[in-house]
């Protein structure tokens, strides 16, 4: 083993990598909010819908949580052209991962709905609250307390999951790392630095989510 680590080449490319980190964050935001929207629809459908809607949501959740997100994205990018649908790498990654995370977020938000008990709604009614008030003071606090920690964790998961967009050619953090390692051949150093950036990114995200949860939803998440 006679390999000497040389980080100089990589550190010179740091702005390029940080630009990639920005794209990673952007992807994660789009995917998270898109997935949350799909998940909300799914959870509403599964909780309040008829048997047909429920079965539909069940099939959607079962399929997308039991197959790899990577294969789904790959299917969109390399499979769909045969059916005449061409997607750019970015949109394939966004669509694939959004639909995928929508399935998980369906389950998370359904858990939130399940945490509101019938009796509490009755109590709210007995106190003379109207619908808006009971949503504001009874339902939402309950739901948020239950689902905020898993939602925060899921955001971190998406942040890490976006790395697979690199494999279909999106130049986010991992994609740019692959580029640099191809041009400088300092592969180990590049990926050490990139791993460090991911750690810092997720640590910042955890800290922000912790503070937001603490202030707005009075949720105390376990950090370590």
């Amino acid at each position: 083993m006679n390999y000497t680590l040389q980080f100089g080449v990589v550190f010179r490319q740091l702005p390029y990598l940080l630009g990639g980190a920005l794209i990673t964050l952007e992807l994660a935001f789009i995917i998270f909010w898109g997935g949350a929207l799909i998940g909300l629809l799914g959870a509403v459908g599964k909780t309040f819908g008829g048997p047909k809607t429920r079965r539909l949501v069940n099939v959607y959740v079962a399929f997308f949580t039991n197959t790899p997100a990577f294969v789904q994205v790959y299917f969109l990018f390399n499979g769909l052209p045969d059916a005449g649908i061409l997607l750019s790498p970015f949109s394939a990654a966004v669509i694939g991962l959004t639909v995928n995370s929508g399935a998980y977020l369906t389950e998370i938000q359904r858990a939130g709905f399940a945490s509101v008990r019938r009796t509490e709604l009755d109590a709210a009614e007995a106190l003379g609250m109207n619908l808006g008030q009971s949503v504001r003071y009874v339902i939402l606090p309950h739901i948020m307390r239950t689902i905020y920690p898993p939602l925060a964790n899921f955001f971190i998961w998406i942040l890490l999951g976006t790395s697979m967009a690199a494999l279909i050619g999106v130049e986010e953090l991992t994609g740019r790392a692959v580029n640099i390692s191809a041009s400088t051949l300092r592969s180990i150093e590049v990926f050490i630095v990139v791993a460090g950036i991911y750690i810092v990114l997720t640590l910042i995200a955890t800290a922000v989510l912790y503070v937001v949860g603490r202030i707005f939803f009075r949720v105390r998440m376990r950090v370590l």
Partner: protein
Amino acid sequence: MQSLLNQIPSFFTYYNVMLLLWGIGSTVLLTAAGCGAGFVFGALIVLVRITKTIWLLPIKIVVITYVEFFRRIPFLVILYLVLFAAHAVDPTLSLFGVAVVSVCLLATAYLSEIIRAAIESVQRPQIEAADSMNFGFWRTIYEVVLPQAWKVLLPPATAFVIMFIKDTSLASQIGVIELMFTGKILANRSFSGLLVYSVILICYFVLSYPLSRLAAWMERRLAAPTGTESQRILRTSAGFAGYQSYG
């Protein structure tokens, strides 16, 4: 679309099916190796973390840093890191070996968190009671903690295995011959990507759907008296259980 249907008979030939089965076997092997090692090392890590002796403190810090860091690096980056590092250390290590090593690294980190959550779900007074009855460390673990913890452990651990079956698909990127890689081979043999990747998706589904049903069943059977409905959904459904940090 018509050409797709025409391809189906020539797709399901003996050799292609064998190739797919080989891929499935390889994926299962990779998952089993990773999760097996992850359970053993994860349990060791948890043992180190829950002891209160002061001389283990340096190891404790190392172990906590390891768990926290490896849960914050994407599997893909770990794969690349292990791949290139392995090439610097020992160029003869096979790609499958690289994949096994990185799978073990990741699974250890996540499973140790799952095991720790399960152990911490055992209520404090139980352990204090064991203490007051002069149980030793091992006896407390063996007779008080484990009988209660394994029920909490199994459903998320199963969900984690599912997550890992899915994550190993990324190993195809460095050239490990597993299910996704066989798909890429078949796609390169000029079969329609639509057909090939649909088949691959179905194969993954067949692999992990029974496990997800098992996780849901275990959660209903084992933890029903204490768990609320919403906890139950969260702990089994998602399959990203290792990313959860609630107890």
